[in-house]
């Protein structure tokens, strides 16, 4: 199960700085933990988060095992034009999630 939640204001004034919050459902297994029998649990994390605004990348984060489970990433962007914000998470074991949010700019 791979799910993600994003919070984007539905509309904004042109040039306004809007706050965006994203949350992805992921255990972010560090690769440093062991089972009770002493076996190392393999790493399974989200490696990269990207946010594109009408196809242009505005924010990118490279995550490490030190990011807590269910990674929250909050940032800002300038509302330049109406369109869509696309959020993409990619990680180990072929994990990919894409979420899209529309924004109306007046």
């Amino acid at each position: 199960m791979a799910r993600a939640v994003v919070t984007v204001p539905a509309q904004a004034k042109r040039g306004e700085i809007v706050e965006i919050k994203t949350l992805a459902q992921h255990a972010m297994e560090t690769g440093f933990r062991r089972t009770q029998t002493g076996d190392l649990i393999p790493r399974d994390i989200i490696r990269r988060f990207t946010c594109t605004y009408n196809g242009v990348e505005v924010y990118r984060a490279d995550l490490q095992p030190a990011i807590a489970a269910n990674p929250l990433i909050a940032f800002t962007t300038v509302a330049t034009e109406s369109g869509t914000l696309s959020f993409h998470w990619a990680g180990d074991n072929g994990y990919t999630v894409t979420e899209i949010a529309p924004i109306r700019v007046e």
Partner: protein
Amino acid sequence: MTTRREFLVLAAASLAAPATVEAQIDPNLAANRKAAFHAALRKIVGDAQVQRGKVKLQLPPLIDNGNSVPLSVTVESPMTEADHVKAIHVLTEKNPLPDVVSVALGPRAGRATLATRVRLADTQTVTAIAQMSDGSFWSDGAEVVVTLSACLEEGLI
């Protein structure tokens, strides 16, 4: 039937066992982590000087549970095409891996901010470094006291 000699050998072996377990904890752990931190820092900044200021790293001073620690970084910058923040990096001194997160951004971000939740293995100083469009590096550090480590096995120093 266990002879007295066999018993003594077994008893001696069982007493010696805990010593070998202790020996498995690397005595150079602290030094290795410090070296890893400096290697990670050099990888980001190269030979450039890192100046204090412009960056504001916010972390709670005392944390009960290192598994999820709210962290936010704000960098003072007009975020224009000519003068903006290119990247924000967060590093730790005592986590098993020094890198925490690296962010790439530009004038389209509007403000140079990052808010996330991190794992901390021990009481330590967390460092945030910002790379400006002119190539300069600015940093800020925050001391954090962690009462429950995020990764207990690795956090025992």
